[in-house]
């Protein structure tokens, strides 16, 4: 019932899907490029009293390495206005105090959902100096379009 050309087509199709799988798997597990998946739980109504979110801000943790503890709430990021030197690796640790938010930094691959009740982590190396736009990319209410800040890389 199947034409030769159809068999070839389907083998190529199947091969393409498997190719995607292999590359994705290699990147995820060997190169540690997997999507943000941190899963620690937190009481979303007690964020301010729970470490490390009782002390949000930026902290130097090594040579060219920083940790940013960040709280997302309608309609702001705390801390806002972050500054790091070029070449820094920045680890973001985030949670939400109210509804679901999104953490996205334009011109980077930083993109993570921040859900109340969960701690989310994501890391990025900033090589190029400039001002990076941080914005909320999950609709969170009337002021959603204002929810933004910047990361300055010097």
């Amino acid at each position, binding site marked *: 019932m199947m034409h030769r050309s159809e068999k070839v087509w389907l083998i190529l199709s199947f091969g393409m899907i498997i190719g995607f799988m292999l590359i*994705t798997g290699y990147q995820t597990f060997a190169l540690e490029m997997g999507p943000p998946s941190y899963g620690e739980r937190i009481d979303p109504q007690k964020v301010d009293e729970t470490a490390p979110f009782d002390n949000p801000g930026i902290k130097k943790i090594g040579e060219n390495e920083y940790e940013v503890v960040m709280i997302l709430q309608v309609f702001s990021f705390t801390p806002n206005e972050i500054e790091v030197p070029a070449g820094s690796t920045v680890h973001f640790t985030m949670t939400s105090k109210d509804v679901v938010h999104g953490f996205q930094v*334009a*011109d980077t691959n930083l993109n993570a959902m921040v859900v109340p009740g969960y701690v989310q982590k994501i890391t990025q190396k900033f090589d190029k100096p400039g001002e990076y736009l941080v914005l909320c990319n*999950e609709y969170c209410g009337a002021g959603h379009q204002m929810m933004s800040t910047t990361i300055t890389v010097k």
Partner: protein
Amino acid sequence: METVIKQTGKTQAFKDKANKVMGISLEDAKITKSYLSVAFLAILLGGILGLLQGLNRAGMLELPAWLNYYQVLTAHGLLLVVVLSAFFTIGYFYAGLSHTLGGLLPKVRKMAWIGFWMKIFGFVLAVIPILMNEASVMYTFYPPMAASPIFYIGLVFIVLGVWMCAFGAFINVASWRKRNPGQHIPILSFFATGVFVLLFFGSIPVAIEVFTIIPWAFGWVETINVMVARTLFWAFGHTLVNIWYLTAVSAWYVIVPKIIGGRRWNDLLTRIVVIALVIMNITGGFHHQIIDPGISEPVKYMHVFMSLAIGFPSLMTAYAMFAVFERTARKKGGRGLVGWYKKLPWGDVRFLAPFIAMAAFIPAGAGGIVQSTNQLNQVVHNTMWIVGHFHLTLGMSVVMTFFGISYWLIPYVSKRMLTPQINKLGVIQTIIWTLGMIIMSGAMHWVGLLGSPRRTSYSTYFDNATALSWDPYLFFLAIGGTLLMIGVLMQVYAVFYLMFFAPKGNTEFPVAEVEEDEAPTPRWTERWGLWIVCMIVLVGMAYVIPLVDFIVNAPPGSPPYKTW
């Protein structure tokens, strides 16, 4: 007793014949006419709201406080994603069931009407709080954002109405199978069975979600499990997407070959595509949660496979469609490696619209494969890219197929004829729609890649240079949106002209035959019970681990928030 059965058998055989010769019965026609009327009114309203958003995103229009961007967006989504798709799908397949199974049973007809009014009632309930700005939560209504409880009660009625129609279809198909032992369900009804199986099983998760939300929205329960709600939503959300897609695919396999004067693709392979899409669909929803917290990387990786697997039957379809086109065109004397394309009826809107719809699925499907892959998803998740993607899939592949269907289905149910003028209008409409969608969706993809977020009213983010650099691309949303609005008006005019004013006559329901020398399809394709079991097993594999984890290791829940 036996004679009674024989006689009812005979009456049914007579009805089957009458149906074929005289066209659809008036009672069955009324059901489809009503469903399609609602579908196209939803396009009209949803289209107007869409234009308002396009103009806003281009920075050209500030929406008033009494009808803000997020109200408009919630209503646009509900009208086009839920109302248009559900009403068109049911109207189309009920006509298909009536045509291929010898008319609807009186009981089923009644169920279709009960379902119709339940959905309308539910929709009105859901829209009232949206208009009052009490439900600006989008059609995804992620907790802990909480809308007015009325909104969720409305959704319950919509789901119940859909179930009513799904059960109606099952009853009609089962009754036909009993009357025709040993026979295959006619191909269009086979597609319908698949679609209604998915509609029923796919909406169970969202029904559970809404039933947990209602007591919480009323304040009877203090908190809600946010991740469980989100996961249940997407088990439904992506299935819905594939339901419209499967509806469009049914027309590609069954209707379009007849319209171009050919025969349809191999019956067995067609049925395998339906079965594969039914079994593998529900698990695909998980790729909406690739960058969510609380789901481990191995689970996410398994889901990439489950999502990509859905691509395989679509790739089978891609081959089948072009093979049918080539075969038909060559039979008509087409020559050359690609020269045969000249023999296809390009001036016939019933072919042109679904053809462009299929062609659009090449980039749309490729985009889908790309963005359901973990790392690539992270680049585009919740950006305008996604909006561009589903305007290509839903707005072109699905909706243009629906448009193409309307030019014969509406004359068929209204016992009228497609006039050359309306055909011409349809061709022009198809071109305008295509241009509008390419411009709009193209710009959305590109600006999304640059970082512009979806579901966000116009914002320069305090005159941020990066955000300002998106403006030129966003301007194309207004241009595309305007073209699409013109397309909507032309299409709605054509629909209601064909329904009420076109010259009377008999229009055929175009169902293609298989090739003459085709081997008979094996019986195992009819084992729907087995396909449903396979589907449930796969859903279990996909969802048991994350859901159990979200429930057993749940963080303290969230109270309701109204943040708008």
